[in-house]
């Protein structure tokens, strides 16, 4: 990476919660896209890579005896605490990182310069990997009641919806257009998921512009059409995922919620998930808890409670469960909305789909789900994830919460997802990395305008390539489980250490079961291949003895006991007792997470063409930093 270097600084220490001043001296490199810290002091060279786009904040901390500290908080919850020997170096790194981590224009995003070795055809094929029409077909659409319409092909109905949406056949163009005038941002009720078994549907939209008393015939007809598309149920649910008070307050602004008196045969319900500001603050508090140095159990649990984070996760999950139950048990269709129908609505529809349909628990299905409910249907990724320098009040961990709901389900149902936790973490990383075009902007139209399909790559082929590491070795197959009925009592929700303390390796189990099981699975497949190969070659031989020895080698290697060192078990260490935390744990088996990021970044970096242009084009004015 030397050729693309922006800055190189020696005498830098990387501290973590276990090492103190005994940390070794290393070198810090800044490239156009990454910060790379190299510690070559021990036998094993250790590299720490941080993508500039992942950096949320950079702070200079007060001077210490060890040097000039720089604290970097990342959007994927990596916290890097550097101590730089020279003040001038520290300041240079600080100002460079401020510039590099906060692009102003969309063209500055990594996706537009990321250029792996891939043919133009393959890149285009990558974008065609996910076709939502195929998923609708899987649901049986088009059918007697539902059709895929192109009424929005020029975004006349709704400029944040995709060109093709699914509406009831009974809803003609006039109804669609009329309804769009009565819904916030024109986000009319459209189909999210159809439960084939009983024709109940999950639909989504935004809040009606009802104010205190406004009505709209077409909107009422639209809901009627949705209800009648499910003849098996006399009523349908309309679910407002906001707290009642917030929804009522919206009425004063000419918006609000559906009046049961005006819409025939609807049952209206508030679910009460808090808004983006509450969630942003909740996460902030949670991260503060995660960063506490040596907290007591009480400190931790109290902090966790005060953040409210798990309470919010439960609220999203409860909503998903309600939808799934309504559809499966009550056979009733559900129309979901929040305010603009692209935050809580997306979360809740996605969770419900996963609960109902095992397809969305496969690799392909999960990608389809995200493409459908988040990407196609519009979600302000750019704002929520702070891709560009913008309003900090728009930032909120909406997608993060959805990913966590999936993880919580994985804990309760370990055999039902085709993929593992790492898959979720990779997707989450890339929602923020802007390395791929899928999550740029806010909606399909915007992505078309910025030409992501011509100029950037899709994330999905990249992930599918790594399928072997991202799969769940305990997956029991597509047909093993149908609907999931999770336990939603509070004790069922665990703190996700792998996400929020992901980079605090000492906190995680010291031995990785996932790796071992994955190697068992691949061993098994290799052995089966070998065995059949051998059988074909030498039909007279008695039994696959070679295969047996192969398996022993494999398992021994993956189960090599990991050297680990004791942490500081003292509140106050008694004099004379060494605290055992030696400078740098011997990472004999280096953790896979770090390696993943490293390997993928290495490849990307080597394949980057000249990205110096990106830096030249940036704003030269010293914009005051605030994230």
């Amino acid at each position, binding site marked *: 990476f030397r050729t693309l270097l922006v800055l190189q600084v020696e005498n830098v220490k990387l501290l973590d919660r276990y090492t103190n001043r005994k940390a070794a001296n290393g070198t810090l490199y800044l490239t156009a896209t990454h910060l790379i810290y190299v510690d070559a002091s021990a036998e094993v060279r250790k590299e720490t890579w941080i993508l500039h786009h992942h950096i949320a904040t950079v702070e200079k901390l007060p001077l210490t005896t060890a040097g000039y500290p720089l604290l970097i908080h990342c959007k994927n919850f990596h916290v890097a605490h550097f101590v730089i020997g020279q003040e001038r170096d520290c300041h240079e790194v600080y100002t460079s990182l401020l510039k590099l981590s906060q692009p102003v224009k969309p063209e500055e995003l990594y996706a537009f310069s990321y250029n792996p070795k891939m043919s133009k055809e393959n890149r285009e094929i990558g974008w065609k990997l996910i076709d939502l029409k195929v998923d609708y077909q899987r649901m049986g659409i088009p059918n007697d009641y539902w059709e895929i319409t192109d009424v929005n092909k020029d975004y006349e109905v709704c400029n944040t919806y995709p060109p093709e949406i699914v509406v009831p056949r009974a809803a003609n163009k006039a109804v669609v257009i009329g309804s769009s005038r009565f819904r916030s941002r024109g986000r009319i009720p459209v189909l999210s998921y159809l439960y084939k078994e009983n024709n109940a549907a999950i639909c989504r939209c935004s809040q009606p512009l009802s104010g205190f008393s406004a009505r709209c015939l077409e909107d009422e007809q639209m809901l009627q059409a949705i209800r009648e598309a499910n003849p098996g149920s006399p009523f349908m649910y309309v679910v407002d995922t906001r707290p009642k008070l917030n929804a009522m307050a919206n009425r004063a602004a000419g918006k609000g919620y559906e009046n049961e008196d005006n819409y025939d045969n609807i049952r209206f319900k508030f679910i009460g998930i808090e808004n983006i500001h509450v969630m942003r603050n909740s996460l902030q508090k949670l991260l503060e808890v995660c960063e506490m140095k040596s907290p*007591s*159990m009480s400190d931790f649990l*109290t902090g966790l409670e005060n953040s409210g984070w798990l*309470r919010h996760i439960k609220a999203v999950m409860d909503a998903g469960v309600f939808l799934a139950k309504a559809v499966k048990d009550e056979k009733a269709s559900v129309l979901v909305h929040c305010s603009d129908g692209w935050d809580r609505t997306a979360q809740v529809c996605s969770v419900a789909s996963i609960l109902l349909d095992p397809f969305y628990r496969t690799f392909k299905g999960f990608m389809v789900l995200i493409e459908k409910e988040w990407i196609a249907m519009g979600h302000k990724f750019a704002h929520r994830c702070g891709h560009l320098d913008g309003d900090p009040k728009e930032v909120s961990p909406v997608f993060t919460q959805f990913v966590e709901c999936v993880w919580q389900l994985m804990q309760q149902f370990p*055999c039902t997802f085709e993929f593992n936790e790492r898959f979720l973490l990779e997707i989450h990383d890339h929602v923020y990395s802007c390395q791929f075009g899928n999550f740029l902007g806010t909606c399909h139209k915007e992505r078309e305008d910025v030409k992501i399909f011509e100029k950037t790559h899709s994330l999905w082929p990249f992930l599918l390539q790594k399928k072997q590491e991202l799969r769940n070795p305990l997956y029991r197959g597509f047909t093993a489980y149908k609907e999931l009925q999770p336990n939603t009592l509070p*004790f069922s929700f665990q703190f996700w250490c792998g996400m929020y303390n992901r980079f605090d390796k000492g906190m995680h189990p*010291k031995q990785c079961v996932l790796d071992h099981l994955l190697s068992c699975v691949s061993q098994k497949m290799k052995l089966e291949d070998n065995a059949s190969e051998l059988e074909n070659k030498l039909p007279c031989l008695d039994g696959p003895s070679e295969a047996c020895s192969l398996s022993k080698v494999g398992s021994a290697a993956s*189960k090599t006991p990991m*050297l680990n060192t004791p942490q500081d078990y003292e509140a106050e260490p008694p004099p004379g007792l*060494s605290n055992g935390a030696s400078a740098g744990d011997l990472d004999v088996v280096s953790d896979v997470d770090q390696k993943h990021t490293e390997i993928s970044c290495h490849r990307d970096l080597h394949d980057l063409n000249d990205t110096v242009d990106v830096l030249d084009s940036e704003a030269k004015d010293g914009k005051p930093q605030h994230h």
Partner: protein
Amino acid sequence: MLRSSQPLTGPNRKRCREDEMLLGTVLEEGERGFIIDTRSAQAAKQARMTGGGTEPKSSYPQWRRLHRPLERGRPLQESFIKLVEACNDASISMDRWLSRLESCRWLSHVKAALSTACLAAQCMDREEASVLVHGVEGTDTTLLVTALAQVILDPSCRTLVGFQGLLEREWIEAGHPFHLRCARSAYSHARLKQEAPLFLLFLDCVWQLSRQFPFSLEFSECLLLTLFDNAYASAYGTFLCNNEKERCLCKVKESTHSLWAWLNQPAERKKYLNPLYSHNALVVWPSVEPQSIQLWQGLFLRWIRPSQYLDEAWAEIQRLAESN
């Protein structure tokens, strides 16, 4: 590693030459040892008023005393009861749940027990020093520490057979009063003075180790649950009475069957083995960060939520491990 009960120093700072000599023989000339007292410094000092006390530095110059207060007795039983109540509350909100989990302090006790055991292990493994552990009677928190320290230090204690041997040695023969401590468990209205879940706390700590080192214990969670069950109510005589003397008087060995004999039958034994086990010759140092310590759902939620999906996962793990 040694264990004992508290020295009977008393308010007049009595000395006992024989006791000093006994501890003296453990250490070489110039060597240092550590005394881990499972009472707070203040509690240990107050114990003198009732005839107990601590080892004065002047009489035991080679020994350095460390205080690591561990909960025992009624407060520990209350902690257990409160946790079980919280788990059983079906109408509880998330905030209330976390609040009760915190206020019952069970996980704090787990953290403290693991930390103290690690301290003892550190003294031996890192400082290469001998350790004496005692609390008041030497029958509760003392045994918790010594037994746990051995699981941490000694790979043979992590085998199925070795673990049983450890239990026999450090809990049963050492005189943990099972009959008194494991009388009624968490649901009983009779709040017995002598009841306290030290043994459960030990099992919980071992479970935490198995979670952090999934390959390093030869036995599974199933064994730990079986031990918990049998400590409170058993068809076998293994956990009966309070000490060896009582067992002799009650003729336990003549009149009852041994749990170990049952467990170790080839057909039974399979159930208690960890399919992921791979001998680990090293010391296993657990993390005692709050994020690393979890509620033992397999025990505390055992009858509250179905384990079907987790059982299926274990069956898969077994299948994969066996096919390897």
